[in-house]
């Protein structure tokens, strides 16, 4: 390599290494170190697995942890099922101006903050909200109905919040499927279902994988929607982390929780990549 090129390489490597090192890698290592220490006196600590033991022995923590994981998977599945037909419609059925405006319309809700979106659902779902009033007006119910503060409301909110991140990669991958390939499927005797199963879905796999991973991550790491829309029983794991850090000032336990969440998300993302036969590099670009 010429000297100039070498200098260029070093100059370009610096920002990357500083960023990844100081903001991603070292903080996580430090978080891990904090999570394996136990306070034994004022300003005195020792290495111990106490925080992880607490996590595994306290049912509330473990149950919340598992619940959060399962609900996030459920959210991802629902988002995929709802979003797929719409993405297919935008990518393959709609043409020209309709196609681009539908695609744009899909993006609009996500130009506004998640807080605003959640707030919208609160106005719709709460006891004095639109749905409740509407049902009363129809005469279907006698008094106000509270639809907020339960798991369903929370999942509705989570699905809504992550829809874009499912639809966009799906549209992009399915757009690249040539119409003639679908026509060839019909020409050779395929039915709607068999073409969907053998041609469209395999082709859309990279989009399905990247969409699912992002939606899963967003749900798992979400704090706002479960707090605002979920009820007393729908505690989210991020809420536990928040309360350990900010309310109880027990950073050691909070860091351990954070690490468990990180491990969980890594395992599930890895499993999703394996199931769909994709790699992280391929799905994220």
């Amino acid at each position, binding site marked *: 390599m010429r000297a100039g090129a070498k200098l260029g390489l070093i100059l*370009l490597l610096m920002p990357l290494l500083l960023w990844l090192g100081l903001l*991603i890698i070292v903080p996580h290592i430090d978080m891990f170190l904090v999570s394996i220490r136990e306070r034994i006196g004022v300003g005195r600590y020792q290495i111990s697995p106490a925080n992880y033991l607490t996590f595994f022995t306290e049912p509330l923590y473990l149950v919340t942890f598992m619940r959060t994981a399962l609900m996030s998977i459920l959210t991802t599945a629902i988002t995929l099922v709802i979003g797929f037909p719409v993405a297919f419609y935008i990518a393959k059925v709609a043409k020209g101006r309709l196609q681009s405006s539908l695609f744009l*319309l899909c993006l609009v*809700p996500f130009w506004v903050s998640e807080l605003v979106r959640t707030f*919208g659902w609160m106005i719709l779902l709460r006891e004095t*909200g639109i749905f409740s009033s509407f049902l009363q007006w129809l005469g279907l119910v006698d008094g106000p109905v509270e639809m907020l503060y339960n798991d369903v409301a929370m999942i509705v909110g989570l699905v809504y919040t992550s829809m874009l991140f499912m639809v966009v990669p799906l549209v992009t991958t399915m757009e690249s499927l040539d119409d003639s390939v679908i026509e060839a499927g019909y020409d050779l005797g395929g039915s709607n279902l068999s073409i969907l199963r053998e041609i469209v879905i395999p082709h859309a796999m990279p989009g399905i994988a990247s969409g699912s991973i*992002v939606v899963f991550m967003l749900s798992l790491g979400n704090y706002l929607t479960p707090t605002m829309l979920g009820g007393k029983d729908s505690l989210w794991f991020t809420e536990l982390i928040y309360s350990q850090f900010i309310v109880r000032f027990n950073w050691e336990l909070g860091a351990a929780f954070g690490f468990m969440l990180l491990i969980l998300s890594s395992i599930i993302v890895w499993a999703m990549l394996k199931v769909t036969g994709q790699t992280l*590099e391929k799905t994220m670009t």
Partner: protein
Amino acid sequence: MIPTIRQPLSLTLVYRAYVVLFFVYLALPLLVVSVFAFNDSLFPSLPWKGFTWNWFFGDQRPMIGVFNERPIMRALNNSAFIAVFVSALSVCVGTTNAFLFNRYNFPLRGLLYVLMLLPLVIPGIVLGISILVFSSTLANGLEDGMGWDIYALRPGLPLVILGQFSFITTIVTLVISARLQKFDRTLEEAALNLGAGPLTAVRTVTIPYLLPALVGGFGVAFLMSFENFNTTLMLVGSDAPLTIAMFDRLKEGSTPLLNAVSLLLMLGSSGLALLMILFQRKR
């Protein structure tokens, strides 16, 4: 399926109805938020008590409008300040990253690329606490060892900027890389052939080509920073950005003031997005 394949009419209609329903679902929450910003009532809910601009311009209790509500305006200011810094920083680092991965082969390139993508699969709140933990370790170390109390390492605007920057950079890198990959390198070679130095060639040929991606990356970063909640929540100090300030109010109970702020946010970000689209189209 696709239009060239005849389908039973019923199926086509059901499909269309589904898509329409989907867009109603997308629009509904935003619509109600906007509509109730004009409700002449203390609560953003039915019954409708008439139209008012008070939640935007009102200056008398209890109906103080957005523009006269000092804490909200201050929070908006904070958000804009953070967003500008985060966008500028991440476009710079995103550009160097894009060039690095597009142009150079070096040891550990594959590993670094995966590491570069990693922030996308770290939950935002974990990113927040890891930076919080590390910065206070640093701050405590410096204070104990050197007696320096570095304000920037305690929760506050600088940490929020760093926290958001840590994952937005990945997204900006991907946006810029996508365009750089499409760049025809013979154009640069042509510039070299016509007497430009390597840096001049990049500056006069490659960067103008990348401009739409740089602007797009800036816009995306700006919006993401403005919207960010999870990472910010863990790093915020006394100067809360808008989302956090709104969150605190929402916990106490909502007034149409929040609807008014939300509507302004929607208009602002749609305007920015529209501007970006127009810019891309002009190119």
